[in-house]
């Protein structure tokens, strides 16, 4: 299908985009368009004005700031991040997880910030950003605010972004030295949206778990941080972590049923992926 009619403006700057966003006309931002264009083409979504920020050089940055944080601007593509040496060195889970998004042809256009602002419940990036404690920097004509991504995602395809706000960049703090990580997902075919996925990061102190972050996606309206499961293995011996986490996980998640999968299958997938990802993260601990 073809999109319903809309007007289009290639923004001249972030400020220009913000001014247009604050106007009376119902507007949507577009950068890579790999989520928005299918919605417009299928007429599942429509807008009166499309504001393009994908070409803006002031948003096209991947840099490490003075505090050692990774800063990614809103027009940076997933392909650029996936292959960036700083990302591979300091945030390997991010690089690995991007490799599971769609196909190379999609990642050549799709952006990091666009995926976060879209918040598909089956998408990889919201889960990864949560597991890595990323922070969203949000701009509007009224000012700037920073929001931990955990508070950004409020439901399926819903975020805390107001209609006049733009997710200008996302900031990933430096990851704990020696921590092990894992990113695993199950999809019917390679490149499909995942049925269920897990992002985990674990650090050890001696034989015990000293820090743990586990996020699952595909089992709830948004990526889900497993607070109870994390708490259950924190401070416990690494060799018992999988058994403890699995019994806690079975109580913590209540996946829904849909055309792609029954709730029982989703739960079983989550359990298996959790086992595999904890094992892999522990193997990668230094």
């Amino acid at each position, binding site marked *: 299908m073809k999109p319903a*009619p809309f*007007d289009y403006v290639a923004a001249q700057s972030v400020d220009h985009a913000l001014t247009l966003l604050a106007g009376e006309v119902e507007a949507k931002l577009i950068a890579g368009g790999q989520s928005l264009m299918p919605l417009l083409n*299928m007429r599942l979504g429509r807008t009166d004005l*499309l504001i393009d920020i994908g070409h803006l050089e002031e948003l096209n940055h991947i840099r490490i700031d003075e505090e050692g944080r990774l800063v990614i601007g809103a027009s940076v593509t997933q392909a650029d991040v996936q292959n960036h040496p700083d990302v591979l060195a300091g945030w390997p889970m991010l690089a690995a997880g991007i490799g599971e998004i769609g196909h190379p042809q999609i990642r050549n256009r799709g952006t990091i910030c666009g995926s976060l602002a879209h918040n598909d419940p089956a998408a990889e990036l919201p889960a990864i950003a949560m597991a890595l404690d990323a922070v969203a920097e949000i701009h509007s004509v009224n000012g700037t605010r920073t929001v931990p991504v955990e508070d950004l995602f409020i439901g399926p395809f819903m975020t805390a972004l107001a209609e006049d706000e733009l997710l200008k960049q996302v900031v990933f703090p430096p990851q704990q030295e020696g921590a092990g990580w894992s990113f695993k997902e199950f999809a019917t075919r390679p490149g499909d949206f995942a049925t269920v996925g897990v992002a985990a990061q674990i650090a050890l102190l001696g034989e015990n778990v000293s820090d743990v972050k586990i996020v699952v996606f595909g089992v709830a309206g948004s990526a889900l941080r497993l607070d109870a499961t994390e708490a259950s293995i924190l401070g416990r011996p690494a060799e018992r972590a999988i058994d403890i986490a699995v019994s806690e996980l079975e109580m913590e998640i209540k996946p829904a049923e849909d055309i792609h999968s029954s709730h029982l299958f989703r739960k079983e997938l989550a359990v298996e992926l959790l086992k595999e990802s904890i094992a892999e993260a522990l193997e990668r601990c230094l």
Partner: protein
Amino acid sequence: MKNRLGRTLNTPLSPPYSESSAHHEIQLHVNDEVVTARVESRLLLTDFLRHRIGLTGTHVGCEQGTCGACTILLDGKAIRSCLMLAVQANGRTIRTVEGLAVSDEKLSSIQKAFHEQHGMQCGFCTPGFLMSLSGLAEQGGPKNDAELDDHLCGNICRCTGYVNIRRAARQAMDLDAVESDE
């Protein structure tokens, strides 16, 4: 003031948002030629290529980024032309399947490999495969079968003729010396 949907606007808007932002003058390079055109905002790049400048080698399958039939090169990178607006291609460089061969008689090495290995059945998906592989070649080619397959996965062949397509791709990408995990 009314916008072009007939909706009344409360406040006049400053340029460039105006009546005219429904249409745009664009200029781009397509297969080494400069193309200028006036396009509607919502015109997809696929439809621009096919219907406005007659390059019907770029095929339209799903229009949601899944099938890969519309894959083209944008500034040397393989992308879905159904998920991009024509107006977004303003100032960019595009290559379509028509621009792969350097002359009418010669095929590119990737096209030649598809010809030799009979990497097609009905041929509908072929331009998309050729463009995905051309993008991969421009980035230096795959290091191994896994990387090649990652790119091939982005195109669907509903005849399921993948064996010959993969054979052709491996030949074109010089992976023949590497043992196949076919």
